[in-house]
């Protein structure tokens, strides 16, 4: 019965041709232009590392040139000894009282396209918006930087501390099972560009963020690295629908982005999609199980005394059980260009 399937909240699995935002900071210098078709790895912007505020007096002929809009990149001017101090190049924050406030600094880092697509919007100092050619697998959060690389799946049950080696440098590695900050730090040290995990505990997230901050503050930077979390905070296996998609794109060039959180997939792969009445149990005693929706199971009192609506589900092991509808989810296709 699928007529009552809409009682189960849907979870978006794939988003066709998503629009993704790549964050900029005031002072970052955008190289690409709106409408440019870009390939994964193309440099889109030069990133500032330690932006600083500079206040400069208006150039002598500035009044004749009109008032530049905030966000405009202004070239530097050489100093004229004894006459004028030089001004650094930078992005205009605003102009007031005969002075300009600029965001400036060295640009040692690059912002690269995480996947093939087209640049559709530029908001100086805020974000670039790319329309991606292929679909995106929906995640919940990206910790760190967007990146692109060849997708490698570590075997189920493997210890990531042992399975990671330098042969994976440049790859995006899917780590099933328990993952901690130590494994992720090791992956980064091996040159891995990114990791895809099912869940990550809050403590590991904070450890990872602290490790990244130390890297950022140090004089020698490692390559950018990001961890894409597909689920939440408590350990769970990948649902079979997600596992099937990851296996289908294994070895292909993929990208990760954080806004919205997505694993960007190649456009030319045929991706499996689960049956509409397939449901995943995400909580309760049957957590992690999957099965088929049969219909409403009526209100039931759960352990602990709370009365909730349930649904009848035939699990893959053949049992038919009532499960709280709040513990169920089904997969759907998300809206395009979100």
């Amino acid at each position, binding site marked *: 019965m699928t007529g*009552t399937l*809409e*009682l*189960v*909240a*849907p979870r978006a699995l794939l988003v066709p041709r998503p629009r993704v*935002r790549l*964050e900029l*900071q*005031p*002072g970052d210098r955008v190289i690409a232009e709106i409408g440019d078709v870009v390939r994964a790895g193309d440099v889109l912007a030069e990133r500032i590392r330690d*932006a*600083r*505020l500079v206040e400069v007096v208006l150039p002598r002929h500035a009044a004749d040139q009109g*008032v530049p*809009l*905030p*966000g405009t990149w202004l070239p530097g001017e050489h100093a004229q000894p004894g006459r004028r101090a030089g001004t650094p190049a930078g992005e*205009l*924050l*605003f*102009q*007031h*009282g005969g002075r300009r*406030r600029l*965001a400036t600094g060295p640009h040692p880092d690059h912002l690269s396209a995480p996947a093939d697509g087209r640049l559709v919007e530029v*908001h*100086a*100092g*805020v*974000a670039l918006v790319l329309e991606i050619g292929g679909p995106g697998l929906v995640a*919940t959060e990206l910790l760190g930087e967007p990146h692109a690389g060849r997708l490698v799946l570590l075997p189920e049950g493997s210890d990531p501390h042992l399975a990671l080696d330098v042969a994976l440098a440049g790859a995006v590695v899917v780590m099933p099972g328990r993952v901690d900050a130590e494994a992720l730090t090791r992956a980064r040290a091996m040159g891995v560009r990114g990791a895809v995990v099912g869940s990550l*505990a*809050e*403590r590991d997230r904070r450890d990872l963020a602290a490790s990244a901050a130390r890297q950022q503050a140090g004089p020698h930077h490692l390559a950018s690295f990001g961890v894409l979390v597909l689920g*939440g*905070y*408590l350990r769970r296996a990948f649902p079979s629908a997600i596992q099937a998609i990851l296996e289908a794109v294994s070895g292909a060039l993929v990208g990760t982005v954080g*806004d919205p959180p997505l694993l960007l997939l190649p456009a030319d792969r045929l991706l499996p999609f689960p049956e509409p009445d397939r449901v995943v149990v*995400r*909580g*309760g*005693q049957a957590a992690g199980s999957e099965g088929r929706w049969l219909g*409403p199971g009526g*209100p039931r*009192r*759960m*352990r*602990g*005394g*709370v009365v*909730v*609506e349930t649904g009848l589900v035939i699990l893959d092991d053949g049992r038919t059980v009532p499960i*709280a*509808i*709040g*513990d169920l989810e089904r997969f759907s296709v998300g809206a395009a260009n979100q």
Partner: protein
Amino acid sequence: MSRAEAAPAVPLHDRGPEPPGAALLPSPSASPAAAVGPHGAFVALDLGGATLAGAIIGRVDGRWRLLAATALPAGCDPDALVGLLVDRLRAADPDLAEATMGRPVGGREPGHGLPRLVARSVPAATLAVIAATERTRARLEEAATGAGWVVVAGSAERTDPLELTRMATRPGVAALLVGVADPPDSDERDLAAELAVAAAGIAARRPGMRIFLAGPIPEAPLLDILRDPDLVRLAAPARAPGEPASSDLRIALADARRGPTDSRRAIAAAAGSLARVLALRVEILEIGVAGATRILASPSPDGDGGSGVRVEVAEAPDAALFRVSSPGAIDRVDHWFTQGLDRARLRDRLAELAMAPWGDLEGDGALLRGAALRAALERLLEATGPVLGDGSVDLVIGAGGAWSAVPGPAAAHIIADVIRRPGAMQVAIDHARLLGPIGTIEDDAERDALVADLAADLLLRLGTVITPRGLRPNRLAGQLALTTGGGRSEVDLVAGGLTLVDLPPGASGTAELSFRGTPDLGPRGRRFQVPVTGGLAGLLLDLRDIPLRLPERPDRRRELLGTWEAALWPERDA
């Protein structure tokens, strides 16, 4: 009352198609039964951040009654929920279903096309506040937070323009509030124009960003740079600390964030109706996963000698159910949780619940929700106390999704644990989430009449809590004599604990309290006579300390809390 008069009360875009014979279906106005006929039904939907709650309300014997209600996780299809309720009503009482909704014709179920009252929770959006000085920043921040905004704030006095720009352009910021006092303080005068230019620089990077100007901030720099800015001029913040709940700035900021069908705004309107209809001072504690609101509504005679009502609202986004990002918030959840759990695991479970609020309902998951709800309620009272005060009320109502995940008696216990005021109060919860949808009815008289009709069904009565202050712990404190229609019972009162007296829903009576000392129960005294009403929890004599003092040692604290919890939540160990 004609249909044409009542129609604007319902959001037209949310009404389903009119079923055959729609002339017999009344609009959701509570008109005299004779005027609209005996039949009719409508659907109430509350679309919350985590929960989709629905109910069918039908006209039975000339009165509006709650016929069916349920709740599902947000994201479910409202039509599927209505279908579930219609099927359930038709299966349970086919005659009543036919009388209120009509008979299926040609396979078409008229119940699916019932008129709908819809309220929606507008999630808390982020507002960047930029002020000239730290003083003004604090006042603007207070007003914006009380209006339900999540606030990031800075001042030109402390923060450089680069950092202010970064702050205001970060992802998620929906609007910008720029302000100075009116008239500007001496140290603000020179900064007002620069702030306007800085705001223009920020808005130029974020096309379409809404900009609020509070106080004498010049518009010219914004108009020079932005082609068609979305500018709203608001009142300046209060000169003294403590932005009142009814300040123009706070109300304008709240209106700007919420739409006309926002459930929190609507609940405030429904609170006014409850106060008028029941002639009680009502306090609503609305807590959800996206925000929290405290509403006080008190009957007050209006200028015409009639009965008016005074409604005050304050929001506290940080009091959202599983939001534990503020300092110490996780410790308070741990403080109330009766199961031992290490801090890292506790944090992970709360974070997971914030993502999937309907998960983990069984076993200790329900107890964890109870602890999180107590902590959220503490944050709500703490955040709104400076604005709304801490005075006693007659009826406390728990509203929002947070209350539906704990059994009724446990909800009464949660309120008694956290609201530590001397006095007596009735306690209830908005079990079918009707307050929001009913509050979307714009006409006060129509709303009042519907509330009067539905009063028995609208609230799930939990009972009465009596909390004296000033008793000496662990001693015989006095005696209670409860007189109800069924007789008279006497109970000895021992200070330091909770005493439960059976008083079922629908029952009422008088409690005569005789104390050995002179505790504070509103006024101080030795003998009190308190009218009491029954409910799922009954009469709860809370003879514990005010404020509640618990053992410092975690194991002893859990044991004591667990003892009280078990008395009102016997299924917790099932």
